[in-house]
């Protein structure tokens, strides 16, 4: 079993290194194939491990080597495969495998095909470290590793020029990559502080040691640690107010959006909350704050998705919204439900993104859904896939999203937080609306794209590779019971109260009414083609939503520009006039003194002798004075 752990962990690393060997050379299909097969091996190992953990119910804990050992600080390079991490491993490797295979088709015409696979596999490796580490330090390394890979991949087309924000809200891939990286830096600082607080008070970073020691800590320390860790989670999972980077990250290639910015990396924040659930269950205030913020983000992001016209951005907003759901569940203490929604969401959201990738591929990278329409005939399979994913997202029964999202909404009801419940129900309706608005605008109605575009279906193998995701998006919900018994061996169980149980039919019906209502509304408005409503589009609310509540502009005006101004001032006034001047001054002094002292070198021995005598007499005087003082 131990070997399987290493195989699962290092197969992506080997794939990444292998692909990196060909990083500078032109496209080699076998690089993609080998990287994908190594990913598949990793997936197979993860699946076997999952089966092992499922059947035996015991976690596998391996320590590869001693990593940091300095004074009292002892951090081994250890890995923990328990119910939670094995779930994440399986989900991550499965989605990654599909995305890798998909990328062979999607990146077919890209010059940097090999480089892409190197980055992608490196990302999976980092993600595996993140989920498998048995201590906070390893988690942090993985955390930063995925951050770096995300930066590399968002900025994969770094050569694209900057454009004005009005033309493209992300300005450019490299801009978006930097934004993502910097925002995550801010959050990473919070996370680091949390880790420091834990180490300071516990003296160890091992999960088991830390969690065993929690009852000895004061509540203020716990609150501080929980809050700091949650700030880290907020950055990686793009929660308000650190959410702007996620939609801009859509500048990266679509497989990246599917893998990193929908299925895996952005859920790392949720994973952190679930992993550190002993801390969060001891801090009810922080947990409630998480739940409230999650609910707010769910609604906030869904509202922005209602009017957006960019295919990928809509899905990105929906990712944000679903992450909000997960945080709501985790904050309310239903950790296993959050984890379940995480897994289910990974499947259908990745599918949705890959479907969007197919559409982009067909439409020559056109992303505006107002300029699509009628693609159903040409792209039947993609239509089915995206339809299935949207149904799952909207939470229609028998699809995966129904079970997981419904459980979260019920949790909100069960906890007696009716306001959160109401918002989440409303958001479910909005989710249904915007996802089907997108589907209808893309695939139904008359065609609105230019005549020179000839939409065509993706490669066969790509479509086949997407099938597992589609199947899982449909059936994943049926495993909910088994999943519950599986992960609650580790996570605290969460059961609905008797009262909620009685009302469950009513609750489900309410959610369903909203979901179906949303779909119906979308159908009415968009299924028969796009009718632009000038009045609506010029209304204040529409503009507010379309401009993302003007938050990017706000950040630009009140953070970026003042910061740039301060930096400029610092550079011109402090750096140039003080720091540089000091350094230059030292250099100038040395030059000048050297230049002046050069005059001593007359070449005349007699002068040298005089200087020597001066030195000798000085030494003599010093000796005399020191003898006198002694």
């Amino acid at each position: 079993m131990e070997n399987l752990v290493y195989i699962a962990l290092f197969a992506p690393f080997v794939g990444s290194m292998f692909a990196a060997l060909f990083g500078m050379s032109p496209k080699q299909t076998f690089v993609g194939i080998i990287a994908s097969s190594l990913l598949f091996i990793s997936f197979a190992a993860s699946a076997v491990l999952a089966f092992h953990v499922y059947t035996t119910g015991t976690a596998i804990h391996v320590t590869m080597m001693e990593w940091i050992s300095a004074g009292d600080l002892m951090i081994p390079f250890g890995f923990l495969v328990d119910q939670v991490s094995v779930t994440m491993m399986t989900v991550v490797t499965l989605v990654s495998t599909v995305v890798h295979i998909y990328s062979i088709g999607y990146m077919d015409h890209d010059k940097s095909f090999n480089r892409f696979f190197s980055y992608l596999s490196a990302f999976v490796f980092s993600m595996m470290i993140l989920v498998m580490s048995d201590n906070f330090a390893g988690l942090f390394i993985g955390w930063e590793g995925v951050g770096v890979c995300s930066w590399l991949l968002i900025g994969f087309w770094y050569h694209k020029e900057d454009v004005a924000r009005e033309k493209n809200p992300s300005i450019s891939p490299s801009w978006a990559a930097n934004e993502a990286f910097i925002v995550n830096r801010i959050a990473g600082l919070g996370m680091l502080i949390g880790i420091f607080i834990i180490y300071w008070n516990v003296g160890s970073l091992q999960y088991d040691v830390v969690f065993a020691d929690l009852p000895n800590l004061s509540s203020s320390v716990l609150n501080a640690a929980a809050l700091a860790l949650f700030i880290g989670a907020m950055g990686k999972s793009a929660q308000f107010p650190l959410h702007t980077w996620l939609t801009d990250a859509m500048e990266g290639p679509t497989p990246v959006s599917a893998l990193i910015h929908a299925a895996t990396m952005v859920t790392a924040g949720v994973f952190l909350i679930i992993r550190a659930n002993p801390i969060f269950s001891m801090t009810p205030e922080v947990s409630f704050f998480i739940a409230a913020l999650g609910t707010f983000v769910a609604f906030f992001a869904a509202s922005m998705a209602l009017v957006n016209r960019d295919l990928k951005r809509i899905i990105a907003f929906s990712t944000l919204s679903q992450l909000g759901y997960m945080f709501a569940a985790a904050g309310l203490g239903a950790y296993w439900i959050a984890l379940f929604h995480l897994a289910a969401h990974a499947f259908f959201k990745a599918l949705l993104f890959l479907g969007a990738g197919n559409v982009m591929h067909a439409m020559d990278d056109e992303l505006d859904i107002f300029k699509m329409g009628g693609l159903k005939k040409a792209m039947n399979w993609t239509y089915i896939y995206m339809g299935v994913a949207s149904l799952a997202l909207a939470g229609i029964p028998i699809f995966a999203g129904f079970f997981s999202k419904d459980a979260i909404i019920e949790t909100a009801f069960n906890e007696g937080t009716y306001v959160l419940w109401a918002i989440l129900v409303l958001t479910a309706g909005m989710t249904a609306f915007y996802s089907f608005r997108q589907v209808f605008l893309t695939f139904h109605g008359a065609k609105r794209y230019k005549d020179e575009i000839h939409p065509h279906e993706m490669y066969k193998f790509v479509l086949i590779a997407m099938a597992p995701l589609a199947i899982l998006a449909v059936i994943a919900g049926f495993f909910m019971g088994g999943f519950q018994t599986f992960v609650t061996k580790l996570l605290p169980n969460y059961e609905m109260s008797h009262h909620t149980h009685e009302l469950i039919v009513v609750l489900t019906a309410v959610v369903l009414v909203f979901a179906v209502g949303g779909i119906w509304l979308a159908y009415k408005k968009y299924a028969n083609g796009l009718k632009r409503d000038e009045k609506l589009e010029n209304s204040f609310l529409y503009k507010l939503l379309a401009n993302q509540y003007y938050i990017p502009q706000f950040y630009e005006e009140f953070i970026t520009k003042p910061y740039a101004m301060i930096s400029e001032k610092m550079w011109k006034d402090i750096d140039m006039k003080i720091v540089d001047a000091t350094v230059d001054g030292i250099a100038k002094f040395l030059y000048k003194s050297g230049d002046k002292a050069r005059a001593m070198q007359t070449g005349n021995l007699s002068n040298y002798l005089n200087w020597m005598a001066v030195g000798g007499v000085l030494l003599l005087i010093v000796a005399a004075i020191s003898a006198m003082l002694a």
Partner: protein
Amino acid sequence: MIGLSHYLIVSALIFSIGLIGVLRRRNLLMLFFATEVMLNAVNIAFAAISHYYNDLTGQMFAFFIIAIAASEVAVGLGLLIVLYKKYGTLNLDDFASMKG
């Protein structure tokens, strides 16, 4: 009575005279003379200390200083002759070839 300080002061004065010579002279041969003066001044000091502390070490050092002075003169004069052959002068001011 003549004490150790008397000898040492004489030695110091002679040494200073030698130093003045070294500083003042530009002719290499004269510089050599001045150096000899300084060496002799030191010898006096050694002999005086040897005498007043009843210790032979000072005299030993004086011997070796004489030996060193002798070799210095032998090599130094050889060099002077070579220099004179080359430049036709022993004036230090004419040898300023190492001007920086």
